[in-house]
Each structure stands twice: as structure tokens, then as C-alpha cells.
């Protein structure tokens, strides 16, 4: 199913908010790596290099109304949906009040009910059928809502993923299947995951449109997801969107990527940093002055410092909290 790509305009105000979201996410992510090296946190999994794709995509939805079933690299999406720097740091440090899981899950295993972000686990692609089920509920109720779910390209090898996409295609469900393709599933390259050049090619066998866009180009991602959301809201069914990104870090704080990729490759990636690319564009269009960027950097630094101090001072959960809530009857408010 071919769909011709349209361009969607982004207002100046939205561009400014998008930039702030990318910048803040990047500085939080960088600090997480530092905290890990300092021995202050046990684990971090990074989204550096994915930010333009994540911010471009999530801003194309009605934030707070539409639903998101993310995966662990989606820090910038969560920041766009209102996760605060303090909340992110509470999660990294496993402190009380962490909103995703009450510090039960590892960091970056998101859930944020107030923003319709659904909890996910660590085995990959398990959220894909959940997205189809939520969309089935939306269709049964006739709600004007769409669902986006994200995975990496490695996750599209899972039967879980095919089964979820197949369901949505059969029933014309309002889902956007976003695949953040950074070419690596930990150390395994794309050519050992699939025989097709692009994840978008998989859509043909499942009967939905598949498109592939440059995930370092925020505008391209915004347009692709905007169009997919329009299709979904119009009852035309799901769309598979591949965004081609760089994973500019090891897989996680427990990985060392020097064993499977070269220095040259890493250097080339840095030259294409999506944050720098977006900022250059804003400067060229006269939407970002050098002084303003310095101010924003200072604000981001302050927000990160505040969040780290806040989380360091916060209490750990009470040990009794590990005993519940196993069942819905055990859920305690407050």
C-alpha cells in the first residue's frame, strides 16, 4: 500500500518547545551516564541520537489524549509528555515516588498513567499486541484517539510484533507502529535481523502502508507521524513508520560497543548529531540566537542539577512496599 508523503508545517512556538524537549532530554541522558560512572546508579539505557525522531513523532500526536506504548529508549517522548527531570532521576536511583513503577522496574521502563503512557516490560515487542488491543477498545467505543507504539528494529524480528501489526491491519485499527531503527540490536546488525533493506518493507506482507524516513530530520518524522495519525483518526487503519536513527552510545551502561563497531563509525555519527542538526536549522531560520542557546543550556543544567539533588535527598521506598500491589485489590492510593 503506497501512501504519498505530505509535509506538515510546525509553528514557531512548537519548534521552540521541541528544541527545549530535545535539549533537556539530552542533558538528562548525559548526566545519567555520569551518575553510572560515579557508581550512583545501577543501570542506564540511553536515547542519545534518537531525540529528533522521538520529539518529531510525539509532537505529531495529541499529547495527553492519544496513547503511547513506548520502549526503553524513549526518554525524549516521556519528557514531551510531562515526565519531570526529578521523576526521571528518582527512577534512575530507585527512589520512592518514582512514577513508572514505584521503583520496582529498572530505569526507563516507562509508565505514566496521567499521560496515557502504558507500562512495558523488558522482553521486547510485547507492547505491540497491547497497542492493537487498546486501539480495538478505541474503535469499539468510537473514541477520537490514536495509539502509537515504539520498538527498535531488532524487535521487529519477534513474532509478538508481527501478531500485533497483523491484528491492527485486519481490523483497520488506529495504531502507529513506530520503529526506531538504529541498525543495532545490542551488537547484532540489521542484516542479521532481516533480509529486507528497510523495516518499512515488512508492511507489504501485512497489508498496511509502510514508510521510512530520516530519523535525524525532526520535520520528516513530524510529517510522517502526522499523516499516520490523520489516517488512523479517519478510520483508515494503522501505518508502519520506520525512523532511521543513530544509537550514539553503547546499548546500555552494561555494554561496551568498542568490540563491535569502529571509532570511525562513532565519529561519523557524532557529525550527524540530530540535536546539533536541529539547532543549526533553527539558527539558519533566525529562530534561535546564540545568546538564547546559552540561556537554554544554563536552564537545562539547572534543571538537571536540581533533579539530581532532589533524587539524592529522596527516600528509598519502604521495604514493605515490595509486598504489594500484586492484585488490583491491593492498590493503595497516595
Amino acid at each position, binding site marked *: 500500500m503506497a501512501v504519498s508523503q505530505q509535509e506538515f508545517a510546525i509553528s514557531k512556538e512548537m519548534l521552540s518547545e521541541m528544541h527545549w524537549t530535545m535539549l533537556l532530554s539530552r542533558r538528562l541522558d548525559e548526566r545519567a551516564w555520569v551518575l553510572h560512572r560515579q557508581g550512583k546508579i545501577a543501570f542506564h539505557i540511553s536515547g542519545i541520537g534518537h531525540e529528533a525522531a522521538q520529539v518529531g513523532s510525539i509532537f505529531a500526536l495529541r499529547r495527553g489524549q492519544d*496513547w503511547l506504548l513506548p520502549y526503553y529508549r524513549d526518554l525524549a517522548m516521556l519528557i514531551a509528555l510531562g515526565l519531570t527531570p526529578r521523576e526521571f532521576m528518582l527512577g534512575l536511583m530507585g527512589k520512592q515516588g518514582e*512514577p*513508572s*513503577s*514505584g521503583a*520496582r*522496574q529498572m530505569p526507563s*521502563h516507562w*509508565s505514566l*498513567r496521567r499521560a496515557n503512557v*502504558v*507500562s512495558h*516490560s523488558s*522482553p521486547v515487542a*510485547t507492547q*505491540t*499486541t*497491547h*497497542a*492493537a*488491543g*487498546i*486501539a*480495538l*477498545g*478505541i474503535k*469499539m467505543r468510537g473514541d477520537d484517539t490514536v495509539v502509537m507504539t515504539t520498538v527498535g528494529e531488532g524487535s521487529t524480528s519477534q*513474532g*509478538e510484533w508481527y*501478531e*500485533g501489526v*497483523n*491484528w491492527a491491519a*485486519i481490523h483497520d485499527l488506529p495504531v502507529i507502529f513506530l520503529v526506531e531503527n538504529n541498525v543495532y540490536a545490542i551488537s547484532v546488525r540489521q542484516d542479521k535481523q532481516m533480509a529486507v533493506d528497510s523495516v518499512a518493507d515488512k508492511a507489504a506482507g501485512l497489508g498496511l502502508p509502510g514508510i521510512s524516513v530520516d530519523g535525524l530530520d525532526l520535520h520528516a518524522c513530524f510529517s510522517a507521524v502526522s499523516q499516520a495519525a490523520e489516517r488512523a483518526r479517519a478510520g483508515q487503519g494503522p501505518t508502519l513508520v520506520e525512523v532511521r536513527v543513530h544509537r550514539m552510545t553503547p546499548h546500555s551502561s552494561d555494554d561496551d560497543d568498542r568490540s563491535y563497531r569502529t571509532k570511525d563509525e562513532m565519529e561519523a555519527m557524532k557529525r550527524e548529531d540530530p540535536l546539533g542538526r536541529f539547532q543549526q536549522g533553527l539558527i539558519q531560520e533566525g529562530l534561535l540566537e546564540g545568546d538564547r542557546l546559552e540561556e537554554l543550556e544554563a536552564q537545562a543544567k539547572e534543571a538537571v542539577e536540581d533533579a539530581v539533588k532532589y533524587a539524592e535527598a529522596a527516600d528509598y521506598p519502604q521495604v514493605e512496599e515490595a509486598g*504489594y*500491589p*500484586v*492484585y*488490583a*485489590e*491491593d*492498590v*493503595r492510593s497516595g
Partner: protein
Amino acid sequence: MAEVTLIEGLRQAMDEELARDDRVFIVGEDVGPRGGVFRATQGLFEKYGAERVIDSPLAELSIIGVGIGAALYGMRPICEIQFADFIHPAFNQIVNEAAKMCYRSNGEWTVPMVIRAPYGGGIGGGLYHSQSVEAFFAHVPGLKVAIPSNPHDAKGLLKSAVRDPNPVMIFEPKKGYRLIRGELPEDEEVLVPFGEAAVTRPGRDLSVFAYGMMHHYCLQAAEMVAQEGIDVEVVDLRSLLPLDRKTVLDSVGKTGKALVVYEDNLTGGFGAEVAAIIADEAFEYLDGPVRRLAGPDVPAMPYSHPLQDWFLPDPEQIADAIRQLAGF
């Protein structure tokens, strides 16, 4: 009161719950116009339509995964897995997703859904249409697991499952679908709570614990040995998770002897947990060993009739086990 089959009890439960709550829907393989391969959903497609009685693709994990998603959105799915043997592709969705959602989100998300599956052998189903899988799931906190042994409990447990705010699994003894008949009130709501076993035959000499088809056989065995003067108490566990420990322990406290009967492989079957609880918490009441009678430790039930019979515990074997234990 009308006498109905066990499967009719299930069908009535779904019919009534679909009528009561428009969030309830059924999803599974062949549940639509076919009415299910065992006819558990017969007539429901015609009555409630294709949007509420949904024929799924032939992919079990998607039945559960889509059900979880719908439940997260506020719907009340009843997911049918055609045979318990086919539930294994959905194991990850049930154990890692449905069961852990409430805990892992600190209660922000819950999964009110029902998973129904026919289980057990004796119908010539061979290795992959005969399995007992309850022990896998009764091991997992976050799930509820129940197994009815008669039409009343089938209806009452399934209706309770639909109204429960958690993922609930109902395993249905397929050999008993039409074999086991019983009375059902016609103008009265039938609800059976989880965590309550039933003493289905009171007795003084010895306690037998079972569920599903084996419970049916235990009642027959108890009748056989009654003529020999052995007064057996039969307890239908009904709900494995949560388990009604009190009724189990009270019964052993009264009789001093316990036999646990289950159709699953002996090793690690759910009855092993029941035996462990009795050994642990009722030791001072015991006048004999805690005995288990179960299926053999071979991979699954064979097809050929004599081989199938060799696998399945039957009333005669249960009666023998009762006689042996009564001799202590």
C-alpha cells in the same frame, strides 16, 4: 431448577455477562459463527454481533496480548484459548504482562480479563489436546486460577471472573463438558467466589482433594469404598490461586489422612503444593503419609486408547489409593 451440562453453564455465564455489561466481549479462534469448537459460545455471535464476539487470527499470543490492551483501555475481554495445550505461545503475555502489570506499575494499570481454556484428557486428544497446564499458572502471583467441576461452579466462577479486576484463568475439564450434568437455578444470579473450596462429600476417615474431572472421579471412588465401610471426605478445591487453605487444613484436622488427586504429571503438579501445605501445617493431625495420585512423568498423554487409559487416573485407581491410605 433445570439440569444442564457443564458447558451450558459456561455458555449461560457468558451470555448473561455480555448482556449485563457492554464492555464485555469475547475473542478467540472459531468463537464466532462456529460457536467455538466445543460450542461454548454457541448463539452468542448471532445475539451480540461480530464486534463483541470476535474471531481472532490463528495466533494465541495475540489473543491474550490484544485482550490485555483492551482491558487496559477499560474493556472486559473474555479470551478463549481453544485448547490449554495451545496456551504456551501466550505464556509470556500471561506471565510477564498480565500477571505483572499491576505490580510493575505500582497499581497504575490493572488488567481485568478472563482467559478460558479447556484442559485435560480422556477424549482421544493425544499429546496436544489433553494437557493439564494449571500448575504453570497457579505458580504466578498476580493471576487467579480456578477450575470448575460442575455446571453450577462453571457458571458461577466464570461470572465472577468477568467481574474481577484482575487476570483470571478458568481451566475447563473438557471431558466433563457434556458428561457432567447438574442443577442450575433459572431466575437467580449464580456467582462463586475465588478462594473457597467446597466439601462435596463429608466424611470421617480420610480426605481426598481434587478439582475438575478428577474431582468427579473422586466422588465415584468414594462411593465405591463406602460400601466397604470407608467414609471418605471429598473436597473440590475449585480455586487454585488463591487456594482455600483453611478448608483443606480443617478437613485434614478432622480425618487425619490426605490423598491429593490430579491429572497432571506427578512431579511439580499443583497437587504437590497442596501436599506440601498439609505436611507443613497439619503435621500434628496426620495419621498416615500425605499421598498423591497423579498422571505419570511422561511428556504428555498418548493418543491410543489403552495408552491414554494408562496415563489417566481413574475411579478404580483412586479407590485403591484410598484403601491403601485407609489401612494406616
